[in-house]
């Protein structure tokens, strides 16, 4: 009865345990750590770590950048060009660090992104100010040295172009001050150096204005210039042209934008020239244009480049188990492609891949991702373009990941093959022995010659063991225990020898004699 009850209880307990387990079998908690986040909190142990310290550097870097504007503008104002070059290099390096950080931390859509854009423009403005100021110094020196009237005119034109450029540059620099200061104050940054840089910039521009009367201003030039329309956007073509009074048809007219050669035109029969200028990678804001015909300089014309919104798309396609092809287009409002522009692909963990658009505004790059689901986004940061930054909607892709490695299978196969080979090799050795057991001892067999006289008892036993083993045809690799199993008729001999060999026992003379008789076949008549 008790036994029956025990069995019943055991069975009931087993059924109960199985039922309880069955009830929980569908629970994901059993298999994965999914219940690791609620609205109130997340389990930090299950949240992926990321490298710390990136964000800590952001605000101090903004402070450094503002400080650098003050230092650089001051050294430019003091005409300390050597120090200014160093300050500019330092400023550029800090700006690069800041740009990287803004992209890495994905804050380009915030006021920090606005600060970044303003800082980039400030850096460009201060760099231009440094170059223009140096050139201005050169022009001043040349004006004194050069006596030739035509050359003096050229100096006056370039000086006027530079003066206007510096004035425009200051205007744009000062216009950014309220927004930049507002952002800086929000982050509790020291804005004093930046505000001083605006003052220094103004002083440098004013000094250029002061030089104007000394040159007598720009005299009326026979080479007229105008930019139509006076403003445009990315992709627009502006017309830079005018009339050259007294010019010979076919004369080559060089056109400069911001003191850089932008192209050339040929004077028509009616004495006019026309150069189409397509707005491409040029910063937004005011720009200057002038033309030269041999030693004749035109006056300076201005035009403004306006910003425009962009649209970037992203499409994902699987290339193989680990690689994904990212393609898309970068266009401006009316569908015009943006060519040669850098595009960043941001994956969910923040890593970036770079691509560049072709003449159709299309980009394509392949990135390798670990297995699993990933969210990707394409970003255009518009550095140096008169365009606003944009980013594509997030796209999700599932990467299958690397397949199973063949290595474990190869190893398992090799192990199996080696085992088979070993067993196959071993069997022929064992089989004859197995067949030999029990060993038929042929009566006519010649007993081996054994001499044990004078040997220590244990060594003598070893000699006798070997002799018997040889006589029975048992392989030398076999131990006494193997021998006893193979030749049970001599089990007593082998077991005694095993005790002598491994247990350290010493045989008596009588035992040795008995063993000798058995080893030499004494049991069958040798004794």
């Amino acid at each position, binding site marked *: 009865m008790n*036994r029956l009850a025990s069995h019943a209880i055991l069975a009931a307990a087993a059924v109960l345990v199985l039922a309880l387990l069955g009830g929980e079998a569908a629970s994901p908690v059993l298999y994965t750590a999914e219940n690791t986040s609620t609205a109130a909190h997340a389990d930090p142990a299950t949240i992926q770590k990321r490298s710390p310290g990136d964000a800590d550097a952001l605000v101090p870097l903004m402070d450094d950048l503002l400080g650098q504007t003050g230092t650089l503008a001051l050294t430019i104002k003091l005409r300390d060009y050597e120090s200014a070059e160093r300050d500019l290099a330092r400023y550029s390096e800090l700006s690069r660090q800041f740009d990287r950080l803004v992209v890495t931390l994905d804050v380009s859509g915030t*006021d*920090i992104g606005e600060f970044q854009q303003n800082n980039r423009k400030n850096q460009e403005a201060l760099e231009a100010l440094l170059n223009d100021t140096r050139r201005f110094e050169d022009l001043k020196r040349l004006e004194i040295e050069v006596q030739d009237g035509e050359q003096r005119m050229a100096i006056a034109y370039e000086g006027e172009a530079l003066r206007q450029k510096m004035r425009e540059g200051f205007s744009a620099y000062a216009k950014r001050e309220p927004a930049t200061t507002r952002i800086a104050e929000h982050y509790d940054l020291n804005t004093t150096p930046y505000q001083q840089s605006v003052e220094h910039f103004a002083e440098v521009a004013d000094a250029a204005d002061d030089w104007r009367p000394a040159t007598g201003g720009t005299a009326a030039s026979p080479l007229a210039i105008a930019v139509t329309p006076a403003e445009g956007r990315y992709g627009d073509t502006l017309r830079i042209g005018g009339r050259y009074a007294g010019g010979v048809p076919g004369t080559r007219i060089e056109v400069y934008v911001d003191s850089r050669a932008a192209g050339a035109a040929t004077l028509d029969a009616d004495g006019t020239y026309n150069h189409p200028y397509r707005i491409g990678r040029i910063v937004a804001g005011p720009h200057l244009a002038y033309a030269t015909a041999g030693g004749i300089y035109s006056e300076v014309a201005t035009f403004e480049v306006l910003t425009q919104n962009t649209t970037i798309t992203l499409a994902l396609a699987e290339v193989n188990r680990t690689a994904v092809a990212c393609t898309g287009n970068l266009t401006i409002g009316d569908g015009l492609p943006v060519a040669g522009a850098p595009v960043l692909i941001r994956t969910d963990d923040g890593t970036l891949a770079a691509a560049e658009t072709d003449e159709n505004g299309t980009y394509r790059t392949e990135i390798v991702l670990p297995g699993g689901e990933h969210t990707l986004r394409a970003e255009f940061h518009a550095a140096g373009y008169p365009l606003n930054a944009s980013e594509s909607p997030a796209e999700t892709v599932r990467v299958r990941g690397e397949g199973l490695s063949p290595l474990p299978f190869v190893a398992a196969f090799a192990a199996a093959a080696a085992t088979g080979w070993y067993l196959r090799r071993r069997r022929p050795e064992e089989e004859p022995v197995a067949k030999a057991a029990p060993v038929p001892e042929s009566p006519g067999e010649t007993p081996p010659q054994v001499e044990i006289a004078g040997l220590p008892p244990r060594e003598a036993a070893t000699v006798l063991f070997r002799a018997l083993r040889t006589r029975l045809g048992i392989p030398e690799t076999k131990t006494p225990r193997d021998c006893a199993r193979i030749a049970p008729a001599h089990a007593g001999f082998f077991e005694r020898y095993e005790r002598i060999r491994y247990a350290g026992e010493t045989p008596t003379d009588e035992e040795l004699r008995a063993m000798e008789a058995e080893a030499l076949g004494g049991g069958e008549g040798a004794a």
Partner: protein
Amino acid sequence: MAKVRREAWAVLLILLLAGGAVYAHATTTTEEFSRYNVGWNGTSNLAVEEVRDLRGLPPGATLLILAPDVAFTAEEVGYLRAFLESGGRVLIADEEGNANRLLADLGSTMRVRPGNLASLERDHVDPGLFTGYPVGNATIFSGVETVLLNRPAAVTGGEPLLETSILTWDDADGDGRIGGSETFGTAVVCAREGNLTVLGDASLFVNAMLAGNPKFIENIRPVLIDAAHSRTGTANPLINAITWVRETPAAAAAFAALAALPVAWRFGRKIDD
């Protein structure tokens, strides 16, 4: 006969193991913040003494009201006022705004503002798991340089004790990125008025977070925890029954007697034999 005895012992052992497993299973819960939840989001590892009656709290002690979800009666508010006036300290940890009524009743201007704070100053991928920085010289943050916060709420009013970095935003759209109308700004997540302190992150006391802020946890000890209004008291009927038995001497005695009954029966049968 010996075989039967062996089987009996095996059955007994299995029954004991099964009983232990059932007890362990039945006396734990997965409720958030529960003292009976041994998982990551429970507070079973928080070494505190529970109180259910707010009358006669020891003067000078610290009372922790953790994630309150039961309203305080006027009488209980009076007990808390008296406790605060006698030099006692009350720390309310709440991130859902449930404590605001109590704060108003206590005459405090501090309020919990639930939201979805996120920050760039973090070493976890989750934007809600970020670093807070103590300000001022409050005892509870003495020797604490940073605090790992876990999806906290902002606290308004009072003297700030713990702030987030400037790179913090209310992630209203929950996409983990700052964008749209979201802006960076510092948020206060802990403030005090006199002996009353409000912490906008009850999650600092869950099991998974204790190791993240050891100095802070050490600073608040010894502490009493209100089990009558906090979610730490959340249990299940079986746990409630066991707690009731433990706290009711007569019931405990009855259970002891019940447990002794089989033994008495066994011994009595032997004597009869």
